[in-house]
């Protein structure tokens, strides 16, 4: 392993990998390799110690039981806190997004989260299922968000987290905002392989973790066709 190698950790795939969460790791590795950036990926199971020196950490969606277990183990382990405090980038999806906050509900019980995002989550009256669309915070300079959401949670942001996007279709956090970001941590309800439809977010994570101002463009004609189709499919909020 040399120092120019980009190291990507997928957190607890044994607990949090409900649907296609592996995709985000594959997409980041693919887009890094296409730019000639050496990349290594690590699947860190919940019975392993969390490395603190990786560049990008990915955490996915899951059922209530595994979500609560993952939060407990990450708090006990402490490695992810150190990595984030040292400036690692994070993409947290769905259940993984919720557990990055101060608290969340699993199986009807309020659970302590990691407190790495200034958010807390509770339960909505209805489950949010369907296409999700939003205009991303202009400070990030990214095109609109498109995703598929499937969650029962509602998430409330504190002062130290900004919404990732303003909802233009679907529910997201509460029907108004979707996801959150602070520093180099991004959380979203776009579940599963969110980066498949949002290659610009993948490149943002790569820029954050390599320090590059810009990356060589890739042929994104297939992701662009997919984006066009899915953005049109979302029902206006």
């Amino acid at each position: 392993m040399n120092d120019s190698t980009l190291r990507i950790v997928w957190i607890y795939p044994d607990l949090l990998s409900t649907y296609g969460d592996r995709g985000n790791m594959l997409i980041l590795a693919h887009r890094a390799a296409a730019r000639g950036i050496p990349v290594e990926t690590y699947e860190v199971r919940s019975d392993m110690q969390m490395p603190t020196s990786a560049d990008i950490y990915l955490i996915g969606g899951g059922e209530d039981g595994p979500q609560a277990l993952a939060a407990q183990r990450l708090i006990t382990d402490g490695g992810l806190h150190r990595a984030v405090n040292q400036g690692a980038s994070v993409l947290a999806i769905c259940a993984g997004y919720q557990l990055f906050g101060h608290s969340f509900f699993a199986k009807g019980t309020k659970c302590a989260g990691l407190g790495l995002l200034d958010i807390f989550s509770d339960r909505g009256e209805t489950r949010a299922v369907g296409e999700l669309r939003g205009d991303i915070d202009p400070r990030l300079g990214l095109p609109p968000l498109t995703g598929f959401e499937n969650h029962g949670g509602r998430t409330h942001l504190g002062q130290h987290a900004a919404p990732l996007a303003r909802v233009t279709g679907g529910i997201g956090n509460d029907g108004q905002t979707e996801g959150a970001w602070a520093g180099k941590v991004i959380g979203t309800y776009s579940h599963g392989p969110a980066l498949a439809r949002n290659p610009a977010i993948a490149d943002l994570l790569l820029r954050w973790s390599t320090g590059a101002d810009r990356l060589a463009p890739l042929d994104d004609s297939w992701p662009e066709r997919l984006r066009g189709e899915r953005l049109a499919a979302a029902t206006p909020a």
Partner: protein
Amino acid sequence: MPLRAIVATTASKTAAALSRAAGRGDGSVIGGWIGLKIDPDLLTHLASGRAVALVSGTNGKTTTTRLTAAAVGVLGRVATNSFGANMPSGHTSALAKEGHTPFAVLEVDEHYLPQVIEATRPKVVALLNLSRDQLDRAKEVAMMAQLWKTTLASHPDIRVVANADDPLVVWSAAASTQVTWFSAGQRWHDDSFVCPESGHPIERANGDWWCSGCPLRRPRPQWVVEEDGVIDPRGDWHLVKLQLPGKVNLGNAATALAVAGEFGVRPIEALPRLSRVSSIAGRYAQVDRDGRNIRLLLAKNPASWLEAFDMADQAPTLLSINARDPDGLDTSWLWDVDFAPLRDRPVLITGDRAFDLAVRLQVNQVPFRHVNSFDEALASVPPGRLEVIANYTAFQDIRAVLDRVN
């Protein structure tokens, strides 16, 4: 049968016949739907007096049901929902259409198993496997296992035939007192890394598995697939000759023999009938058109895609993906499938959600070409075999182009 049930049965059959005559479908759902509107207890009335087997699980239900119906057919006439219409309306249609039969073998959607057990009072329930499938509306996998467990615990009289290789199935059947275990293998482990009882990791070695934190472990199976045959509970090995491809179908045949065994059918009687099954509602069907030999494979979720790659020949392959209601609206499962086995053959893609597949294949480094229709795909491959792998409604679309091949 009560008068209301008789009226409902007649209306059900008429509607099914009209649906078929109008070319609107198999008639396997609409008839039952109308019958149940007239008499909500119709399924109970129709099932009474028959020895019923139910077959449920995420994958292999339709094929195993067909093979089981063939095997039980040794003993007498069998009513079955052979078009894969696996909810109560489909069961009602199937039983109404066949009239009185001594036996029924019904494929049951895993969500409806408790309800259909209540309605049909089965002699045997076969539990095949549980894995992720259409999570945008389906219950999460662990909740499904819990639903089964609770249901079976309240019906200790039912004989259960269950897959010893799937920890979730073993856990959900554990409360039953009369279980016959079969071993048909488990290709997909991603939904059973963690013990459903204790939350500890499941360890695996040489086909065995056990929980690292509680007593849950693989039970010793009475029916086992061995090479190209099946070992029965007496320890006798039987060669299994099938027209259906792949190791997966050998496992399905073992399951069918185990279920039929609960009715007293011996493997030696059932095997010739299993070998005559050539396709199931279009699945595995081969159609010759314009010099191409088209073979249809259905794959609905990550586990069944792995199975389809195992069955497919190294030949030009068309993949078709939709995300309509019966498929689930969510395509994220595409990222749980490793398409690398297709790198050594020409790949064409089509379907409503071909762009999702295109992005997946690009990252997977599988070269492909997008086509707008099945006919375009057919025209762009050389004479010879064309493998078609499609998910549920995409499969039905292609089947319709091929004149509803069975």
